[in-house]
């Protein structure tokens, strides 16, 4: 028998009086812990995927949207650019550009995005892959680890892509074949299906033949502008897009004997007709010199493409998110404050009923300090249990958020390790419990023993 166990039994004896405090405490601490985790994980996700990319070049529109769609694969693309426009950057002789990775977007398979790109994307994210696992020919696909696991894909599997990002609006007839599966990289590539840019052309370019319009919505499933309602367009363009039986001369050329080079290379793209399209380009610079830094501005001012800097846009996004996080944080702090107040009031209330009991303890030899500590321990125990419950809530919430993000964005959050900030949160919460119990404890320590002998 010691003070702590007496405190503990006091709480167990009348649990209803602490339930409210406990729930409030759990909510407040849980919300803060949850925000800490989400903030940390989202920032980590974004930073992991920066991959040293210095500039993203794509169609005019919102720069943030361009970054989100091309680097994080969570928004619709801003539109397409012609290969002609992109050609200078694809040229290995470009004085400023080190790596130029073209992306063709707009198709998906069961909600996972198919990206037409070159093998350089692997270098960009530092991924090693044996050559036989790489997409070389059109309609060959290398799957990211996450997609493969979620959709249970293995090498040799054949599937049909669908148009757009959401679900089967309609599917293309040609079969895509899995030739390789990537190791988990903890980058966005895990959630992608990689194929050649020409695969996209083969599936879409007959519209060009039929309408003669290039870069128009007529065949461009990506939509031209900031296009959140592209599903509508699919409906409209359904007929244009759909006839995949035709073979296009351009794309056929790569099958001719003289082209041994992989169609997943910039060299191949440089040989293609300039009216073919890609969605965007991810660029890394050779060096961060003045000219390189000016490249973005030049593109924005002198071409009808736009260039966006990931660092700037992601910072902008973070500061936008910060406003929201801050508001929620304030709310959480308010809840924690109220929970502290509720512990304080509950204890003060209980003290009235317990005056005689405390006086009795004093008669039995308990010192003022012991009675003081008894009440402090009760505050501490409530704070401890409340925090524990709060952390459970936060990790539970994180799990559900992760599930829903995986469904909606194919991004997942890990349950994450206990961070330093959470440790601070935990100890602050315990501190709050002590502070809330302080005044009741002081009052308890002043209990007048003589009341025990005033019955007559």
């Amino acid at each position, binding site marked *: 028998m010691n003070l702590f166990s*007496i405190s503990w*039994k006091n709480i167990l004896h009348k649990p209803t009086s602490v339930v409210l405090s406990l729930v409030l405490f759990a909510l407040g601490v849980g919300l803060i812990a949850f925000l800490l985790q989400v903030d940390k994980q989202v920032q980590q996700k974004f930073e992991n995927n920066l991959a040293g990319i210095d500039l993203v070049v794509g169609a005019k529109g919102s720069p943030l949207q361009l970054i989100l769609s091309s680097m994080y694969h969570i928004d619709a693309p801003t539109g397409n650019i012609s290969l002609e426009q992109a050609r200078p950057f694809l040229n290995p002789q470009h004085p400023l550009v080190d790596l130029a990775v073209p992306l063709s977007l707009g198709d998906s398979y069961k909600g996972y995005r198919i990206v037409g790109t070159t093998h350089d994307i692997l270098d960009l994210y530092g991924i090693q892959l044996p050559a036989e696992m790489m997409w070389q020919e059109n309609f060959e696909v290398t799957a990211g680890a996450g997609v493969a696991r979620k959709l249970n894909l293995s090498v040799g599997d054949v599937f049909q892509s669908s148009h757009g990002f959401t679900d089967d609006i309609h599917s293309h007839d040609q079969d895509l074949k899995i030739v390789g599966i990537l190791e988990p990289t903890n980058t966005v590539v895990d959630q992608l299906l990689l194929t050649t840019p020409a695969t996209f052309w083969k599936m879409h370019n007959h519209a060009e033949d039929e309408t003669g319009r290039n870069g128009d919505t007529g065949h461009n499933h990506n939509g031209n502008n900031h296009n959140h309602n592209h599903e509508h367009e699919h409906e409209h363009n359904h007929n244009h897009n759909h006839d995949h039986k035709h073979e296009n001369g351009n794309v056929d050329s790569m099958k001719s004997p003289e082209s041994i080079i992989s169609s997943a290379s910039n060299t191949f793209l440089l040989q293609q007709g300039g009216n073919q399209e890609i969605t965007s380009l991810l660029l890394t610079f050779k060096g961060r010199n003045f000219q390189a830094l000016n490249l973005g501005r030049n593109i924005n001012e002198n071409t009808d493409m736009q260039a966006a800097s990931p660092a700037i846009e992601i910072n902008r996004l973070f500061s936008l998110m910060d406003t929201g996080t801050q508001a929620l944080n304030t709310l959480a702090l308010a809840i924690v404050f109220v929970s502290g107040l509720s512990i304080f009031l509950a204890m003060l209330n209980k003290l009235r009923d317990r005056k005689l009991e405390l*006086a009795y303890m004093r008669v039995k030899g308990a010192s*003022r300090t012991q009675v003081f500590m008894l009440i402090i321990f009760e505050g501490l125990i409530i704070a401890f249990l409340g925090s524990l419950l709060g952390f459970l809530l936060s990790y539970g919430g994180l799990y559900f958020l992760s599930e829903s993000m995986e469904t909606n964005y194919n991004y997942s959050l890990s349950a994450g390790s206990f961070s330093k900030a959470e440790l601070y949160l935990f100890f602050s919460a315990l501190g709050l419990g002590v502070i809330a119990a302080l005044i009741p404890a002081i009052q308890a320590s002043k209990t007048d023993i*003589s009341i025990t*002998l005033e*019955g*007559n």
Partner: protein
Amino acid sequence: MLKATQLEYKYKSGPTLTFPSIEIGSGDPLLVLGDSGSGKTTFLQLLAGIRKPIQGQILFEDIPLDKLSDSALDKFRGRNIGIVFQQPYFIDALTVEENIMASYYFSSIKKNEKRGTQLLDRLNILKKAKSRPRQLSVGEQQRVGIALALINSPKLILADEPTSALDDNNAQAVLSLLREEADRLGSALIIVTHDKRLKDNIEQTINL
């Protein structure tokens, strides 16, 4: 064992109360009789070291209780004085057994589980050891209260109206129980009451 001489106490607004000198040893109980308002509660509080007299002296085995500091008095009381209250007090959240353990804990006396069991057995409440005291009958609660007062083997047992709420039979039983335990422990026993039924059983009586 206990000697209180010419004690006086004064409440902030009220007359000065004077009390007769007493001296008792182990094995001869003292009955302090007085009607309501006669100051017997105050007398009891003075003897228990809960209030300090403005005049006079309390010597307990040559220790002057009126000179001890508050915290020293707390410790002394916990170790040496057992109080049987008119209405027994408990730590409500704890079982009878745990209340006994808490008594040991607060008085810093090494716990003796065997003694606890024996005491509860003698008071015929051993089978209630695992119950919370407030769930017991009034008579049982009274006996648990006595057990808690006696568990530390106090040298002085102060009983405050121990029988006033009980019928003749029970009053008699409680009284003999207190005398028996005081004899067994060799403790001094002071019973403060207005219950005149007890007068015939105890020789040494003073009236306030």
